[in-house]
């Protein structure tokens, strides 16, 4: 189970990187990269990240689903006994945002197809929403693993 959790985290790191690159690329695009790190970070072709983000999201979520029972009968019970209710609630929100993100993926993939290039606002908004969900899930997962990891 520990190995699954580590793999879950590694995939989440890759997903965070990809989705952050793409989000900054659509929010503050750079046409001709100059020397700075931030400019280069934004100067990516967002369309090239779409399939990777969808696959990484699905794999990360799938591993999360496999680990979830361990959290439910282990870490969550521990936190409830210590009355760490905001942390339990934070994880509840995480599971719901991940589910909403799963539902968002078809629209996200559709919006990034060349045929939808006349919908930049939809593309931008869906990318930002997905990034917010992913970042929230990543940070809360990390926080709660620090509170009570899998043993």
């Amino acid at each position: 189970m520990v190995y699954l959790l580590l793999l879950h985290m590694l995939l989440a790191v890759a997903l965070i990187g990809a989705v952050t690159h793409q989000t900054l690329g659509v929010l503050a695009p750079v046409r001709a990269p100059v020397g700075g790190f931030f400019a280069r970070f934004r100067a990516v072709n967002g369309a090239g990240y779409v399939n990777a983000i969808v696959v990484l999201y699905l794999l990360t979520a799938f591993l999360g689903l496999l680990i979830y029972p361990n959290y439910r009968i282990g870490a969550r019970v521990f936190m409830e006994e210590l009355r760490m209710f905001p942390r339990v609630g934070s994880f509840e929100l995480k599971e719901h945002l991940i589910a909403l993100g799963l539902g968002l993926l078809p629209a996200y993939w559709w919006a990034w197809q060349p045929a939808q290039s006349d919908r930049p606002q939809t593309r931008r908004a869906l990318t930002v929403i997905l990034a917010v969900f992913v970042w929230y899930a990543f940070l809360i997962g990390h926080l709660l693993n620090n509170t009570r990891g899998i043993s």
Partner: protein
Amino acid sequence: MRWSRVLPIFSIAFAVLYLLTMYFNWPVFTYAPKLRQFFPLRFAPAPSQGPGMYYYGWLVTVGVGAAVIAVVVAYLEEKSGRRVPASLTWAVPPLVALVILYILLPWFTH
């Protein structure tokens, strides 16, 4: 029917259906992790049997339901010539997330 229309409609339907499914607790099945057993629909294990997990069952409920709704709505779109606005794909999920946050508020004010 154009399948490319099904995808955005699926995402809109998924968000709305997810909110209803989690609020009213409509799982297709329940998983009891302590027993390592699945039970059809909503099942509440005895306290000694540990908690029941409805999340997996919700995802199936919502996934299948949203797929059916998306196909039907895409078909109706083609018949009527009217389209579901694409802006709903990004407007609905954050609204649903806010409603869910409101539902979860007792965890943070306990």
